[in-house]
């Protein structure tokens, strides 16, 4: 512990007040720790800078050949088609990303949060100790499995067979719903952790006041764990937006600006992955689309995150 020279005594005698602290080994160590931690945190900033660096130059090259208005507001994305058909409007890709992520979250958020509440508040401890790890293992199933599941079973057997929806072989609905299953373990696990961490005293206090279990879960635990739950939702949404392989396998490769989920869609991430593995000449404008779309996706998620952080800050004030 730093030992401040006591100033009060000298002050009382009318002498000069010296408030300097003597650096000790411990305080230097503490300062060193702080610096090291800050350096670790800076890794994330470095990562962002590197990502921007690896994308921005090629994006600028790309925008040198495709006017930014055409790119951002164009409604046709056909970069590989020849001549007149070639069009670089990125809106269909953005829409595909948003649409499929929304479908996924409509499944994952309710199911995930309800599962989390169940595991945290209602499930006996034995059940929780088994179910939670199983959920987490499922979070590790390679996404290609989900993709093939959607393509070869869910779309033909469930969507068409059981519900008779008439979806195409590659369709947005199947891909989106299964993506929800993919994201669900993440949301459930992190939200459950947050809820379990709420101190027992809060629950007990509420029970003591006569609240029912339902009320305790929804009105006490849920709000108290809100920051963790929001973190879970954001992690889930981020995963859905960035998901590549599932959409690649099950969603088809047709950019689509429509609302009909039975048709095929293409998301930005899937496009990038397909393009990067393709046969297009390196260095051509079609190749540069990889970087342009990557940069666009990066900027979009950044904007989304800024908005959500502002929202979270607002709500956090209400409950803390």
């Amino acid at each position, binding site marked *: 512990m730093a030992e401040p020279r006591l100033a009060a005594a000298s002050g009382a005698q009318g002498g000069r007040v010296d408030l300097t602290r003597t650096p000790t080994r411990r305080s230097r160590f*503490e300062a060193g720790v*702080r610096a090291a931690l800050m350096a670790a945190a800076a890794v994330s900033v470095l990562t962002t800078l590197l990502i921007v660096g690896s994308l921005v130059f090629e994006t600028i090259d790309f925008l040198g050949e495709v006017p930014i208005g055409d790119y951002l507001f164009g409604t046709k994305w056909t970069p590989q088609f020849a001549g007149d058909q070639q069009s670089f409007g990125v809106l269909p890709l953005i829409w595909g990303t948003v649409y499929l992520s929304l479908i996924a979250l409509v499944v994952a958020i309710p199911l995930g949060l309800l599962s989390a509440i169940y595991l945290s508040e209602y499930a006996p401890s034995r059940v929780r100790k088994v179910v939670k790890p199983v959920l*987490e293992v499922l979070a590790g199933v390679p996404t*290609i*499995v989900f993709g093939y599941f959607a393509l070869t079973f869910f779309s033909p057997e469930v969507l068409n067979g059981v519900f008779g929806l008439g979806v195409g072989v590659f369709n947005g609905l199947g891909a989106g719903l299964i993506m929800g299953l993919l994201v669900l373990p993440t949301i459930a696990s992190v939200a459950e*952790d947050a809820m379990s*961490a709420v101190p027992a*005293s809060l629950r007990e206090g509420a029970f003591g006041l006569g609240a029912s279990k339902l009320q305790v879960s929804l009105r006490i635990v849920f709000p108290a764990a809100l920051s963790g739950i929001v973190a879970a939702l954001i992690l889930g949404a981020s995963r859905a937006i960035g998901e590549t*392989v599932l959409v690649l396998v099950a969603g088809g490769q047709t950019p689509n600006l429509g609302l009909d989920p039975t048709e095929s869609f293409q998301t930005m991430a899937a496009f990038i992955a397909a393009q990067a593995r393709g046969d297009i000449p390196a260095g051509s404008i079609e190749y540069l689309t990889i970087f342009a779309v990557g940069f666009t996706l990066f900027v979009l998620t950044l904007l989304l995150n800024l908005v959500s952080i502002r929202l979270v800050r607002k709500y956090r004030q209400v409950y803390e």
Partner: protein
Amino acid sequence: MTGAQIAAAARRQTTVIPRRRRGEAASAWGFAGLMYGAVGLAFLGLAAIIWDFAGDGASVLSWDFVTSFPSRVIPENAGIESAVVGTIYLMLICAALVVPIGVMTAVYLEEYADGTRWYNRVIEVNIQNLAGVPSVVYGILGLAFIVRGPLSMGPVLLAGGITLALLVLPVVVIVAREAIRAVPPSIREASLALGATQWQTIWKQVLPGSVAGIATGVILALSRAIGETAPLLVVGAGVSLRFNPDGLDSSFTALPIQIFAWTQDPNQEFVARAAGAICVLMIILLLMNSVAIWLRNRYEQKW
């Protein structure tokens, strides 16, 4: 029931409970039904997926499968040894990087950083944003700056490991932060009041109290990393290796890449073997997670 209502009822000297219970029971049942339904549905879906590939995969699994190299000439002999070794190495490198850096970042953000300073806000937004960047972009980053560029390692195992670590770092940080935040302030205050320094408090009280949550974060992170294909392909992982990667500077491949390539192969024999490879991947994941889960259950704290 708000506190005000209870107080008002007390003043009126009426009992509120019976009136509450009538409507209450119905909504409680409704909620319970919804909840069990949700959990059931979730599990049904996930079970169906597992069933789907486990069935195909089990017939292919054998000790030979895990100890042979990929083969084109005799598909029945194609194995996944090089891919398994590559995946295990990648996970070790990734964990070795992501646990210290992730936890240190989380500790910094929760315990040291002044939330109003602009640079700390920047770090926070960064982490959250990075969680949503598609994995392919991390591959592009790895290619530009680790394989080539300033580090110029070439397309080697270490480059793949670093790329994966950067990819899942945000997950660890976000979850670890929540775990650290969940430690009640009273614990910290008591420690400081007893004369401990900030770091002593963190090291001896806060971190041990958040091990369970951190373990969850690491589990989720490694689960994500183990299944990643696209960034490794961009960084330069091979698809078919007839030798085991044997050092940080060796060419490499990984299970998800092998799976991806096999599912796209015209030869249906390979498509069947992909299911087997998936089973092996899941088993490795299970083993990895078991360690982390054991840690979590051992150190779980109920405040």
